[in-house]
């Protein structure tokens, strides 16, 4: 009796397992070769997933409302999905569940991972055909990151880079001269040590140390400044465990040992701390500019200090489109066209302090207002030219990032030594790169 019941359950389970899944195969069906035309009848609802907070969230809501008003046949609903670090996971889970959003914000480093899903809407042909879109006006490294094996997987949503932001008041108090474009690592170290004052809970520098991509990409900037590379030119093996990488990690270790770095655990506590005058220097991007401005700190912005060069890292992120039927695809395309047009992008920049994603924004009359409203932002715009290298566009990049993140975090927490930590991460990376991709 008991055995019979078990067999029935097992049989049912086998049957269900056999027919479970596989719902995403018909994804690309229904996509036309030429770009969809604007919608002129009926009504379409689309969802846009994003991880915006504060001023970015407010601006997003405002612009979405404006779009809905001027495009009566479409209703765009922005949806907050939480931290963008988990966006890829959420999107893939939604695809697995059979109901992905129409548009989603995704890190550039996730481009390769999302490129393989059949639910993705590839944009290559549409962008090449539609001259009015102005794909050529998007910066070259942006377009490189959004393209996987010749397929354009998304439209840049954010372009940025890391620059040095410093608290002028604290520098004056410590008797230091302000950082300049000629600063070196040694200069920064000296300043950081001088600005550190445990009694006042004051730190010279802040570093995001939660072992996520945020931890890793700063390290990449330092690696490049020291003359190193992430991978070998053929992309098959790790190259970050070179002398340049060890040098960069040594630098971090020495500053951390001297308690000169505020180690942020991923909650971005460094921002209010900087605003309250507890941190001397930040390596950050324009996304923090609005908060810094509101904190009334007297701040300055300059290039990152150099070892052998002033390279910075840029993290272009993308709007990625998913196929929920031709009508929704058409609506999503119409929205993205509008949203990334120069005029609307300038609105975005004005509301958030983010950098313009295309170079023809700079010729608009309102651009001067933008530069004035966010003192220092022109530095980031200029710094875009220092963005020479990009992170590898690879399906296993997230796992490489995890390995390197652990290494950097471990060194900063005083648990690992730079050489061993990087060697370990390199070993993991080589294993990942050599495994068959499938």
């Amino acid at each position, binding site marked *: 009796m008991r055995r019979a019941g078990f067999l029935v359950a097992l049989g049912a389970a086998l049957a269900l397992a056999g027919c479970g899944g596989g719902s995403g195969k018909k994804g690309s069906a229904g996509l036309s070769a030429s770009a969809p035309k604007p919608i002129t009848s009926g009504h379409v609802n689309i969802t846009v997933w994003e991880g915006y907070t504060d001023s970015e969230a407010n601006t997003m809501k405002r612009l979405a409302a404006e779009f809905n008003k001027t495009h009566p046949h479409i209703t765009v609903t922005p949806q907050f999905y939480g931290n963008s670090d988990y966006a890829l996971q959420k999107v893939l889970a939604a695809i697995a569940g059979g109901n992905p959003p129409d548009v989603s914000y995704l890190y550039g480093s996730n481009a390769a991972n999302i490129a393989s899903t059949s639910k993705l809407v590839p944009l290559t042909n549409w962008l090449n055909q539609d001259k009015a879109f102005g794909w050529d006006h998007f910066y070259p490294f942006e377009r490189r990151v959004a393209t996987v094996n010749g397929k354009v997987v998304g439209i840049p949503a954010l372009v940025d880079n890391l620059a040095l932001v410093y608290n002028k008041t604290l520098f004056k108090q410590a008797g230091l001269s302000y950082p300049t474009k000629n600063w070196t690592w040694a200069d920064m170290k000296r300043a950081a040590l001088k600005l550190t004052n445990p009694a006042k809970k004051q730190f010279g520098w802040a570093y995001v140390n939660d072992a996520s991509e945020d931890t890793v990409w700063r390290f990449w900037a330092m690696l490049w400044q020291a003359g190193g590379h992430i991978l070998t030119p053929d992309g098959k093996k790790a190259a970050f465990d070179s002398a340049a990488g060890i040098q960069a990690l040594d630098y971090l270790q020495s500053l951390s040992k001297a308690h000169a770095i505020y180690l942020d655990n991923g909650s971005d506590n460094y921002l209010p701390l900087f605003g309250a005058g507890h941190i001397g220097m930040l390596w950050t991007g324009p996304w923090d500019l609005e908060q810094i401005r509101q904190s009334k700190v007297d701040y300055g912005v300059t290039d990152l200090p150099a070892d052998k060069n002033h390279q910075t890292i840029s993290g272009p992120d993308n709007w990625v489109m998913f196929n929920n039927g031709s009508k929704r695809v058409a609506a999503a395309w119409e929205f993205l066209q509008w949203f990334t047009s120069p005029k609307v992008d300038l609105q975005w920049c004005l509301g958030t302090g983010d950098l313009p994603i295309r170079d023809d924004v700079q010729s608009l009359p309102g651009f001067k207002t933008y530069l004035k409203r966010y003192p220092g932002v022109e530095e980031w715009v200029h710094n875009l030219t220092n963005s020479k290298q990009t992170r590898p566009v690879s399906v296993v990049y997230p796992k490489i990032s995890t390995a390197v993140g652990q290494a950097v975090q471990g060194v900063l927490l005083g*648990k690992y030594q730079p050489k061993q930590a990087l060697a370990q991460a390199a070993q993991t990376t080589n294993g990942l790169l050599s495994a068959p991709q499938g």
Partner: protein
Amino acid sequence: MSAVAEQPRPPAARHQPPPARPSLLKRLIGSEHLAGWMFVAPAVILIAIFFLIPIGWSLILSLQANNLLGSHHYVGFANYNALSKDHVFRSAVGHTVLYTVIFVPISVIGALGLAVALNRRIRGIRFYRLAVFTPLVTSTVATGILFLWLLDPTFGLVNYVLHAVGLPQQQFLQSPSEALYCIVAMTVWGWLGFDVIVYLAALQGIPEELMEAAEMDGASRFSRFRTIVLPLLSPATLFLVVWSTINALQLFDEIYVTTRGGPLESTTVIVYYLYQQAFQYFNAGYGSAIAYVLFIGILIITLVQMWVGRRRVYYTS
């Protein structure tokens, strides 16, 4: 009843044909069998679909490489093999066991002491009881967020108190060596009330006469406690030990909301690792293998505890 003895039945009655029985169908419909099955049907269907089938399917999944998006193929015991070599999984097991071994005794013994203290008839006891029970009602997510702030190295209350009494500041949840113990503190705070309630109920079930008799015999308070109260509480103790252990081995929510398994994976526990593998990296097969290993582990530990308990627990009825 008449006083006359009853006449025996006329023998002719034995030759009458028995009354016609209802048809088979009618018997079936009116029968207790059908009624029974109809009554249990909804529950059985629901439990079959959402419990029994998943139990079997999980085992099957653990024998597959499955990415939750539709593609899967069978790999035999490869997942279990990989698990045995996976050093992250091994440290997850280590962290989980360490957490459990600290959490369970602190909760159970602490709760016993508190229950004894709360079993008094002193003024304000109602307030004290409420104070102890209230954290139980807050959700695990709320507890996590609360303690994230309390233990924040820069802004938190605890470091402020330490600073005020001259003790050094701690990194708490941001230190790989301290984080897991902070999680213990947080979960003890959140769950102690449960154990206290169970012990209080058990304490109040101890007959007064037993205690009074022992008192009259001259037994000290402490020996009364040891020889009468503790044994009588042993069923509750066994239950709490088993229950707390099972829950401790399944720790997840608080980790997700506070440390996400870090720093440096020092708070990665088994269920968190399962979640990462299955729902962040989409290794559903590997995640299922982890789940089954956890299942077997919990089963064995529970059985051992019950066996040990059977010989030491004193039942009164």
